[in-house]
């Protein structure tokens, strides 16, 4: 019986755990609850992927209202893969969280942190799993509102302005998405994605359809922080508590997934990228984003901010992969969703471990940290190598796909720009390495200890998977190729 209800349990278990957490009030109990819920979510996501692979898409009708009238949850290879990314990062973050928030969030707000985390988790899982466009918006608000509050938990007072700025821009993005969905509903009279995809095809030249595409395009790219709509991201990443920064890395990826869903499943790639020339718009924006954000990362003195800019650059890669409109490029994007989730989580968490001991993410304060915290810094370096795209790490796999896709199209300039931005990544990672290993620590400061095991463990699990999935690509790249083929097949 449980098996048929897995799609809804994926969302409802975290949703119900959130108020329970508020009632429990004890941070330790809340932590145990959120960890358990995250693990359960991960198990459910894995089971769903297994079923989607063997039996094809799974459909679940909420309230026994059969689709397209009622809300439908629909799991196929693409979103099952995305569910795994969300739940896996959530689980890793929860192992890391207690020590990390002990000094980054006020003790009185720890319960609140876990409650918000659970709401955030159910929001993102809901956005991913649903096959109903309006439901996407509802879960968007659940995840977004909890994200704003999570950022504001940061102890730095600038976290408040960062959260407010994100609140304003995020709400604009959400409104645009809602208007887009509303216009599509106006035309087709349905909210179900599969049904909408069918009904929309004959009406694509209408002005309403064009307006809907414009609103959705802007709203989604604002949410997924594509250059130049990324301006909310660096501040939010920098001033949020480290665990929240790691979680936010998943948010942009979920929005890339939603973009794929709308572009490929509902609108159809022909219309979006060729007829409406979105390709001509997205390719230059992605390239500028990659170059500008990587260059900006080089000049940051705050390592957290540097990694934030690097994330903007990585979003550029992913959107570039989408705008190739080829199976290779799309596989690259989907595999990079997973790979970059690992990389950014590992890097931010290693930095979070240093923050616990040093108390500052500024480059000047990290002098000589490589000798004081050898394991943490080694993890940072390995994660950095992955970001650069060194062979035997996951970063190499993604870049391989992107360059292959560029060469398939004969876009030599794009291929060389991908290599150039990798070189820029070498520079900004090297700056940290140089400071950490080759500079003497300030003699006035007391030497710090290595990070505790509860932080080391999740970081090294991530690093090991970065290496493992960099060598054995059967599960990540293999799945991504299947998912890309599925999206190109136009199946709902």
């Amino acid at each position, binding site marked *: 019986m449980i098996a048929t209800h897995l799609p809804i349990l994926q969302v409802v278990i975290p*949703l119900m755990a959130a108020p329970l957490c508020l009632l429990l009030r004890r941070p330790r109990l809340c932590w145990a609850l959120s960890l358990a819920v995250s693990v359960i979510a991960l198990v459910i996501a894995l089971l769903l992927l297994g079923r989607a692979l063997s039996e094809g898409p799974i459909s679940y009708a909420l309230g026994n209202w059969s689709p397209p009238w009622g809300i439908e949850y629909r799991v196929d290879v693409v979103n099952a893969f995305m569910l795994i990314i969300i739940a896996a990062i959530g689980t890793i973050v929860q192992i890391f969280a207690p020590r990390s928030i002990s000094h980054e969030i006020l003790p009185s707000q720890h319960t609140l942190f876990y409650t918000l985390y659970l709401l955030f988790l159910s929001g993102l899982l809901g956005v991913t799993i649903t096959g109903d466009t309006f439901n996407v918006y509802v879960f968007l608000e659940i995840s977004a509102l909890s994200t704003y509050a999570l950022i504001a938990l940061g102890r730095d007072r600038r976290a408040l302005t960062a959260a407010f700025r994100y609140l304003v821009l995020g709400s604009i993005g959400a409104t645009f998405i809602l208007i887009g969905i509303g216009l599509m509903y106006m035309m087709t009279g349905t909210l179900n994605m599969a049904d909408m995809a069918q009904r929309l095809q004959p009406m694509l030249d209408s002005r309403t359809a064009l307006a809907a595409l414009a609103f959705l395009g802007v709203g989604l790219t604002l949410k997924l922080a594509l250059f130049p709509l990324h301006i909310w991201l660096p501040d939010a990443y920098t001033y949020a508590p480290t665990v929240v920064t790691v979680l936010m890395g998943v948010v942009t990826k979920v929005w890339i997934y939603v973009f794929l869903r709308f572009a490929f499943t509902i609108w159809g790639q022909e219309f979006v990228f060729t007829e409406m020339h979105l390709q001509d718009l997205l390719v230059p924006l992605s390239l500028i984003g990659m170059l500008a954000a990587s260059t900006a990362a080089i000049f940051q003195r705050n390592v957290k901010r540097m990694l934030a800019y690097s994330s903007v650059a990585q979003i550029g890669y992913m959107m570039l992969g989408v705008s190739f409109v080829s199976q290779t490029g799309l596989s690259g994007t989907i595999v990079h969703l997973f790979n970059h989730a690992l990389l950014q989580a590992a890097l931010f968490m290693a930095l979070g471990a240093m923050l616990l001991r040093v108390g500052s993410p500024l480059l000047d304060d990290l002098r000589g940290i490589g000798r004081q915290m050898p394991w943490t810094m080694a993890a940072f370096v390995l994660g950095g190598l992955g970001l650069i795209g060194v062979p035997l790490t996951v970063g190499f796999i993604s870049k391989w796909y992107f360059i292959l896709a560029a060469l398939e199209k004969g876009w030599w300039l794009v291929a060389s720009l991908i290599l150039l931005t990798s070189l820029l990544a070498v520079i900004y990672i090297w700056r940290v390495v140089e400071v950490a290993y080759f500079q003497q620590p300030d003699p006035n400061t007391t030497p710090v200890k290595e990070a505790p095991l509860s932080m080391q463990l999740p970081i090294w699990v991530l690093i090991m998977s970065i290496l493992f999935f960099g060598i054995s690509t059967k599960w990540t790249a293999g799945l991504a190729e299947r998912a890309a083929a599925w999206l190109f097949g136009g199946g709902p």
Partner: protein
Amino acid sequence: MKDIIVLRVMAKFFLPLIMLFALYVQFHGDYGPGGGFQAGVIFAAAIVLYTLVFGLAAARKAFSNPILLTLSAIGVLLYAGTGVAALLRGGNFLGYGFLDRVPVQGQHLGIMLVELGVGLTVFAAMVTIFFAFVGKGRR
């Protein structure tokens, strides 16, 4: 404003009426216009009026922060719990028809419980937000 007798008397006169109207909107929601959200807001309006006339300290005696947080959590739990109850009785999540042997009865019960959950949470959230704004600057 406690010392203005007209305000005090009229507020006390109106409070039960507002609350009663909120309950009407709450429980009549399945037949006519209304429902949990509106009812929660109207009920919260009664507390807002009380706070404006009698002050924050008096209002907080009735609705302290822990009580409000508990209420908002119970509301969400009631909503999701109704869905799960339908699931346990053999339907899909939120399949109200399965809540009773007679599907129509089940649907009545389901929508009433769900709206009650919405009402509780909306009320608690509204009052929490209002208290947060009013109490700004003094803890």
